[in-house]
C-alpha cells in the first residue's frame, strides 16, 4: 500500500461546495501536480464537517490542522507554507470563537426590553397561516366575548373608555366614530379596514397583516357587531402581495371555522369580508377617496359632511379604521378598557407602533407606550446614529408630518405633543435623519411627493403644491430669491385652509416645520448658495470641496496624485491653503465626513493624501511681494488666522506687521499641538514661507504692554485681532490653585517653552497624573504627560462616544496605554504643602438629553472616591485671554470672553479700524476654521480700504492653469480606506518623534484611485 506523508481532507459538503470547494480542490490538485507532490500528498474529499459558514474547509493530517474560508488564490501560499516549508498558515487557521461571550437574553437588549407589545404581541411567535396558533394565543376570545356577552352599546362604551384613538394618523377617538355609525339609521352598514399604508417610511400595517392577520379580522367582526354591519372590506395596497396572500388565507380559514360568514360561533351574528386591492394612489388612504375607489371610480375625496358614519361607501353608514387600530380591538374587549388605558398619557392611551428607519442602527418596528421620549426611541431602542454621525431630526408623519429636531429628544411622544412640535403622529413612520440630510431638500422631497400624488380635484392642492415645489426646487438649485421663504409660508397657509381633503391640508407641513427649525439652512441656500449638508449638488462641484471651510480643490489634487503629478498637486494646495503640511496632519477633515465614498465603504483619507503631497513634492518657491499700497496693517497674534490674513494682504501689496506675545510664531500650532503630531520643522517651513513674502513678525511683543493700542492706531491704518484662545477654563473645584494643578493649554505651553527642562527632569509632574476632560487638548496633554514617563489617567464625565476629541486621537491614547475613566467628575483636589496628593471624584450616570443630543451626566450620590495623584491637568475648555484689550479702543468683548462681531459683518468690530477673527471670535475651533477666518478678514480689510478710496474691488490674479485629468474606474470594488502607517507603540511612547509615518507613493496612488470624482460632470 502506498504511503502518503500528508492527507488533505477537503470538505465536499453542500455548504462548502456552495462556497467554492470544488474549485479549491481543483486548484489544489493542480498546484500539487506542478510541484510534483502528488506522490507524497493525497487529497481526499470528505463529508460535511459542520463548519458550513466557514467553508471551504480543509483538514491537514497527520497534524490535524483545520483551515477555513480557503480561496483558490490562497492555494499556492498554502502549499508553499504548510506542505513544503512545514509552517502553519496562520491567516487561514480556524480560530475557536470567543467562548466566554455571554449570550444576552432578549431582556438584555434594549431594542426588545423597552418595548411593550400589544398590537405586535404575536410577532415572531405564531405561524400567520395557521388559525389554531392565533387561537392558542387568546385569538378570537375577544370576539367571542363581544358576540356572546356584550350588547353593541357596551362594546362602544368599552372603546370610548379605553381612549383608543385612530392609529392611521388623525387620532380621532375610535369609540366615538363607532358611536356615530351605530346611531345612524339603516340596515346596510359597512366596516372598512384601511390597509392602504401609503406613507413612505411606515410599514407597521404590512407587518401586522403579514404576521398576525387574524387580529385584524377579529377587530373587524367586533366593530361590525358594535355598529350593526354585516359586510366589510379590507382595502389593501397592491404593493403588499404577501400581506394580501396571508389575508386571503386567514379569511378562508376563518370562514371555514365559522369565525366569519353566517352565524359566527353559533351566535346568529353574520359578517362577511372581502379584500379590495388598491391600484396605486396615495390619496386613497384618505377615507372618502378610499370609498370612492372601492366604488370603482377615480379615487378622489369628496367634501364632508356628510360624514362616512352617515353616508359612506355606496352612501351607506360606514366606519373606516386602520390596521393597527383594528389589531388593538380584540385585546381591549378581552382584557378591558382599564387595562388598555393603564399605559399612555392623559389624552393618548395605550401603545403606538413606530416604524423606525433611516439613519439609525436598529431598524425595525417598535411598540412603546404613548408618551415615550423621542430620545429613548432613537437612542436606547434604536441604538443611536451609525458611523458616529450626529442626529439632526426625526421626521414623523410622512408627507403630512414634520421634523422634530435635536433639542426635543426629551419630549414625550403623544398626539398632542407631536402637533405642538409641528409634526403629526401620522401612521407612525419615524425616519431618523443625521447631519448629512438637508432640510430644504427634505422639504422638496415631500412636496414633490404630495404634488405627484395630488388627485387634482381642488385647485389649492393641485396648483399650490406645484408652485411650492417650484420655489423649493429653485432654492435647492441656487436660484432662490429673498422673500421666497415668506412666500412659501403664505402659500402654505392658503393651502392648509382651502384644500378639500387631508392630503392637501397637510401637504405644506414638512415645509413649515423645516422652515421653523432650519430657517438658517434656507437662508444659507438662498443667500450664500451653500448647502451645509452637501446634498443639493447643483450648488457645488463636489461635497468635499463644498464642506471644506476654505473650499480646497480636493478632487483635483487627488486626481493629480493618481496621475503621479505631485508637484502640480502641491500648487493646487497652495492656491487656497498657506498651511497644507499642517492641515495634512492636524486638520479635523470635515471634508471626509461628507465624502460620497463613505456611503459605499469608507471615505477617502483626504487629510493623509494632502500630507503625502507636501511630504513628496518640492514646495513651490515663494518670492517677496513688493509693497504697492500705502495702507499699513497690524496683525495681533501669529497663529494660523493672523498669519493667513497677513499673507493674503501681503499678496495684495500691503505692508503687514504681526505682533506676537510669545517667543515663537504659530499660535496653538506651536504652543498647543505636540511635536509628535506636528513636527516643529514642518510648521517652521510654512511660517518661513509666509515671512518670505515680506511680512515682519515681532516676537515677544505683547500688545497693550510692550506696545500700546494708541501707538498701534498711530502706526497702522487697520488692526486685525487674532489672539486665539489660550486660557484654560477653571473647573471650579476646591484645591485648583495648588501647585501641580495645570490648565491643559498652560501645561502644553510650558512644556513647549521649556522642553529641555521637562525632559531632563528639572520640571516634573510627579508620577501619577490625572487629566480632566475629553477634548483634543485633554488627549494632547495626556499623551505628552505619558511621554514624560508618567502614569496617566483621563477622567471624563460622559461616555467615549461623547468625547469631542478626534476618534484617531482617542485610539492612539488608548494604544499608548493611557487609562480613560468614563462617567467620572472631579469634586476636590487635596494636597499637602501646597502640592497635590489626591483628587476626589464622583461617578456619574446619564440622564436626559442636552441640546447637543448627548445625555447629560448626573451625579450618583454616595459614589465618591479618591485617586492618589501627583498632578492634575484640567483640560475642560479654553477661552481667549482678553486682559490685554484697552477698553478705550471701542471694541466689544462678549460674555464668552470673545470679540463681538456685529450681525452685519463677518470680521469687522464696532470700531471700523479693528477687525477680529479665529478662536478669539468663535472660541476654540480648528486650524482650518482659523485659516478661513484669516481669508475672510483679509478680504474684508482690503475691501473696506478700497471702498473708502473709491477704488474698484480687488480682482484675484488668474490662477495658474493646471490641467486635471479625469480618470474614473469603470467598476468600483469595495475597498477600505488606506491605513496610515504608524510608529510602533513601544518606541513612540519614549519620545516626541512623529507618530504617523506618512503614505508611501504606492499607498497614496492606491488611495487616490478610490475617489469617485463627484466633481466630474459626465
Amino acid at each position, binding site marked *: 500500500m502506498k504511503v502518503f506523508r500528508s492527507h488533505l481532507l477537503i470538505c465536499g459538503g453542500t455548504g462548502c461546495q456552495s462556497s467554492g470547494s470544488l474549485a479549491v480542490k481543483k486548484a489544489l490538485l493542480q498546484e500539487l501536480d506542478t510541484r510534483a507532490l502528488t506522490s507524497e500528498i493525497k487529497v481526499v474529499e470528505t463529508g460535511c464537517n459542520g463548519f*458550513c459558514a466557514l467553508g471551504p474547509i480543509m483538514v491537514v493530517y497527520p497534524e490535524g490542522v483545520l483551515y477555513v474560508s480557503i480561496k483558490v488564490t490562497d492555494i499556492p501560499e498554502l502549499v508553499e507554507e504548510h506542505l513544503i516549508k512545514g509552517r502553519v498558515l496562520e491567516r487561514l487557521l480556524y480560530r475557536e470563537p470567543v467562548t466566554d461571550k455571554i449570550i444576552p437574553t432578549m431582556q438584555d437588549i434594549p431594542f426588545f426590553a423597552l418595548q411593550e407589545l400589544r398590537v405586535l404581541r404575536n410577532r415572531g411567535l405564531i405561524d400567520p397561516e395557521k388559525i389554531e396558533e392565533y387561537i392558542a394565543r387568546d385569538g378570537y376570545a375577544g370576539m367571542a366575548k363581544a358576540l356572546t356577552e356584550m350588547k353593541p352599546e357596551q362594546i362602544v362604551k368599552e372603546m370610548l373608555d379605553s381612549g383608543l384613538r385612530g392609529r392611521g394618523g388623525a387620532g380621532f377617538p375610535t369609540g366615538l366614530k363607532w358611536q356615530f355609525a351605530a346611531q345612524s339609521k339603516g340596515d346596510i352598514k359597512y366596516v372598512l379596514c384601511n390597509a392602504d399604508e401609503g406613507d413612505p417610511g411606515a410599514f407597521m400595517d*404590512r*407587518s401586522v397583516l*403579514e404576521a398576525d392577520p387574524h387580529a385584524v379580522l377579529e377587530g373587524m367582526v367586533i366593530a361590525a357587531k358594535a355598529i350593526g354591519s354585516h359586510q366589510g372590506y379590507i382595502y389593501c395596497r397592491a404593493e403588499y402581495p404577501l400581506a394580501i396572500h396571508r389575508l386571503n388565507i386567514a379569511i378562508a*380559514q376563518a370562514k371555514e371555522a365559522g369565525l366569519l360568514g353566517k352565524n359566527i360561533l353559533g351566535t346568529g351574528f353574520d359578517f362577511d369580508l372581502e379584500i379590495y386591492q388598491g391600484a396605486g394612489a396615495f390619496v386613497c388612504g384618505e377615507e372618502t377617496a378610499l370609498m370612492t375607489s372601492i366604488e370603482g371610480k377615480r379615487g378622489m375625496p369628496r367634501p364632508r359632511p356628510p360624514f362616512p358614519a352617515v353616508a359612506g361607501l355606496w352612501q351607506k353608514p360606514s366606519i373606516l379604521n386602520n390596521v393597527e387600530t383594528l389589531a388593538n380591538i380584540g385585546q381591549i374587549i378581552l382584557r378591558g378598557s382599564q387595562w388598555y388605558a393603564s399605559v399612555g398619557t392623559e389624552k393618548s392611551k395605550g401603545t403606538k407602533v413606530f416604524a423606525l428607519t433611516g439613519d439609525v442602527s436598529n431598524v425595525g*418596528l417598535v411598540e412603546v407606550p404613548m408618551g415615550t421620549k423621542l430620545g429613548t426611541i432613537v437612542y436606547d431602542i434604536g441604538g443611536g446614529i451609525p458611523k458616529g454621525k450626529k442626529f439632526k431630526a426625526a421626521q414623523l408623519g410622512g408627507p403630512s408630518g414634520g421634523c422634530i429636531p435635536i433639542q426635543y429628544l426629551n419630549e414625550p411622544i403623544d398626539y398632542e405633543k407631536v402637533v405642538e412640535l409641528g409634526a403629526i403622529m401620522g401612521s407612525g413612520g419615524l425616519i431618523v435623519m443625521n447631519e448629512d440630510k438637508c432640510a430644504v431638500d427634505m422639504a422638496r422631497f415631500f412636496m414633490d411627493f404630495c404634488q405627484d400624488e395630488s388627485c387634482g380635484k381642488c385647485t389649492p392642492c393641485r396648483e399650490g403644491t406645484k408652485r411650492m415645489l417650484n420655489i423649493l426646487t429653485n432654492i435647492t438649485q441656487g436660484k432662490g430669491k429673498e422673500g421666497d421663504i415668506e412666500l412659501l409660508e403664505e402659500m402654505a397657509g392658503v393651502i392648509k385652509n382651502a384644500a378639500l381633503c387631508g392630503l392637501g391640508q397637510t401637504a405644506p407641513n414638512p415645509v413649515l416645520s423645516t422652515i421653523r427649525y432650519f430657517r438658517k439652512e434656507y437662508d444659507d441656500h438662498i443667500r450664500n448658495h451653500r448647502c451645509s449638508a452637501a446634498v443639493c449638488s447643483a450648488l457645488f462641484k463636489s461635497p468635499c470641496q463644498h464642506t471644506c471651510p476654505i473650499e480646497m480643490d480636493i478632487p483635483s489634487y487627488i486626481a493629480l496624485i493618481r496621475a503621479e503629478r505631485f508637484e502640480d498637486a502641491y500648487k493646487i494646495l497652495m492656491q487656497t491653503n498657506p498651511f497644507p503640511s499642517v492641515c495634512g496632519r492636524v486638520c479635523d477633515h470635515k471634508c471626509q465626513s461628507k465624502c460620497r465614498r463613505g456611503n459605499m465603504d469608507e471615505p477617502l483619507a483626504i487629510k493623509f493624501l494632502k500630507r503625502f503631497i507636501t511630504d513628496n513634492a518640492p514646495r513651490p518657491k515663494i518670492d517677496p511681494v513688493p509693497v504697492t499700497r500705502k495702507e499699513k496693517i497690524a496683525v495681533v497674534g501669529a497663529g494660523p488666522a493672523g498669519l493667513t490674513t497677513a499673507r493674503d494682504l501681503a499678496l495684495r501689496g500691503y505692508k503687514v506687521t504681526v505682533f506676537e506675545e510669545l517667543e515663537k510664531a504659530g499660535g496653538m500650532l506651536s504652543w498647543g499641538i505636540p511635536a509628535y503630531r506636528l513636527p516643529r520643522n514642518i510648521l517652521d517651513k510654512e511660517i518661513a514661507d509666509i515671512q518670505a513674502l515680506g511680512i515682519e513678525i515681532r516676537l515677544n511683543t505683547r500688545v497693550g504692554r510692550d506696545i500700546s493700542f494708541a501707538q498701534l492706531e498711530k502706526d497702522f491704518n487697520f488692526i486685525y485681532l487674532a489672539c486665539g484662545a489660550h486660557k484654560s477654563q477653571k473647573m471650579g473645584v476646591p484645591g485648583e490653585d495648588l501647585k501641580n494643578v495645570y490648565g491643559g493649554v498652560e501645561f502644553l505651553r510650558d512644556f513647549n517653552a521649556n522642553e529641555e527642562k521637562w525632559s531632563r527632569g528639572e520640571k516634573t509632574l510627579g508620577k501619577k497624573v490625572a487629566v480632566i476632560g475629553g477634548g483634543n487638548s485633554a488627549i494632547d496633554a495626556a499623551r505628552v504627560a505619558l511621554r514624560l514617563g508618567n502614569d496617566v489617567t483621563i477622567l471624563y464625565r460622559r461616555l467615549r462616544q461623547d468625547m469631542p476629541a478626534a476618534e484617531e486621537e482617542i485610539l492612539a491614547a488608548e494604544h499608548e496605554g493611557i487609562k480613560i475613566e468614563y462617567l467620572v467628575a472631579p469634586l476636590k483636589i487635596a494636597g499637602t504643602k501646597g502640592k497635590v496628593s489626591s483628587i476626589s471624584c464622583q461617578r456619574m450616570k446619564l440622564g436626559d438629553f442636552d441640546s447637543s443630543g448627548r445625555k447629560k451626566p448626573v451625579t450618583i450620590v454616595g459614589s465618591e472616591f479618591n485617586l492618589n495623584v501627583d498632578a492634575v491637568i484640567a483640560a475642560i475648555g479654553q477661552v481667549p485671554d482678553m486682559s490685554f484689550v484697552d477698553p478705550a479702543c471701542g471694541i466689544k468683548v462678549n460674555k464668552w470672553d470673545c470679540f463681538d462681531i456685529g450681525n452685519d459683518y463677518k470680521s469687522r468690530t464696532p470700531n471700523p479700524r479693528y477687525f477680529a477673527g479665529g478662536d478669539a471670535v468663535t472660541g476654540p475651533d480648528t486650524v482650518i476654521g482659523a485659516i478661513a477666518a484669516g481669508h475672510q478678514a483679509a478680504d474684508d480689510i482690503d475691501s473696506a480700504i478700497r471702498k473708502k478710496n473709491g477704488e474698484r474691488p480687488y480682482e484675484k490674479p488668474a490662477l495658474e492653469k493646471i490641467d486635471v485629468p479625469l480618470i474614473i474606474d469603470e467598476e468600483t470594488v469595495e475597498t477600505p480606506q488606506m491605513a496610515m502607517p504608524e510608529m510602533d507603540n513601544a518606541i513612540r511612547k519614549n519620545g516626541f518623534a512623529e507618530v504617523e509615518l506618512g503614505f508611501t507613493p504606492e499607498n497614496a496612488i492606491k488611495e487616490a484611485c478610490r475617489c469617485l470624482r463627484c466633481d466630474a460632470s459626465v
Partner: protein
Amino acid sequence: MAKLTINDLKKIKEKVHAEMALRDGDRRVKITVHMGTCGIASGAREVLDTLLQEIEAAKVNDIIVTTSGCMGLCSREPLVTVEILNQDPIKYEYMNPNKMRQVFKKHILEGEIQTPFVLARGAEIIK
C-alpha cells in the same frame, strides 16, 4: 374544519399551546424562520429551503419547522429561532444558507450553540 363554538376555541387553545411549547408529542426541536417581506428580501426563503433539505438529508423526524412574521428587528434579518425541548429559545441573526447548515449540524444535532451568530436567547415578554 367544522364550524367552531366557543368551547372549541378553548380546546384548540389548550391543545395548540401544548404543541407550540413542545410539551405534547414526540418533537424535540422547533425551528421558526421569520418570514415577513423584509426577511424574505434578505434571503429567508433560501434559509428555509436549506433547512428543509438538511433535515431531509439527515433523516431526522423530531423537528418541526414553522414560519412566522417579522420579529421587528428588520436590520438583523434573516432571523431564525431555534427551540430545543426544555431549553431557552435561541435567536440567530443575519442567517444565510451556510450558517443555517452549520446551526443545524452543530446546534440542532449536536447541541452546541453557535454563539457567533446568536442575537439573543429567550423570548419577548408580553405584559
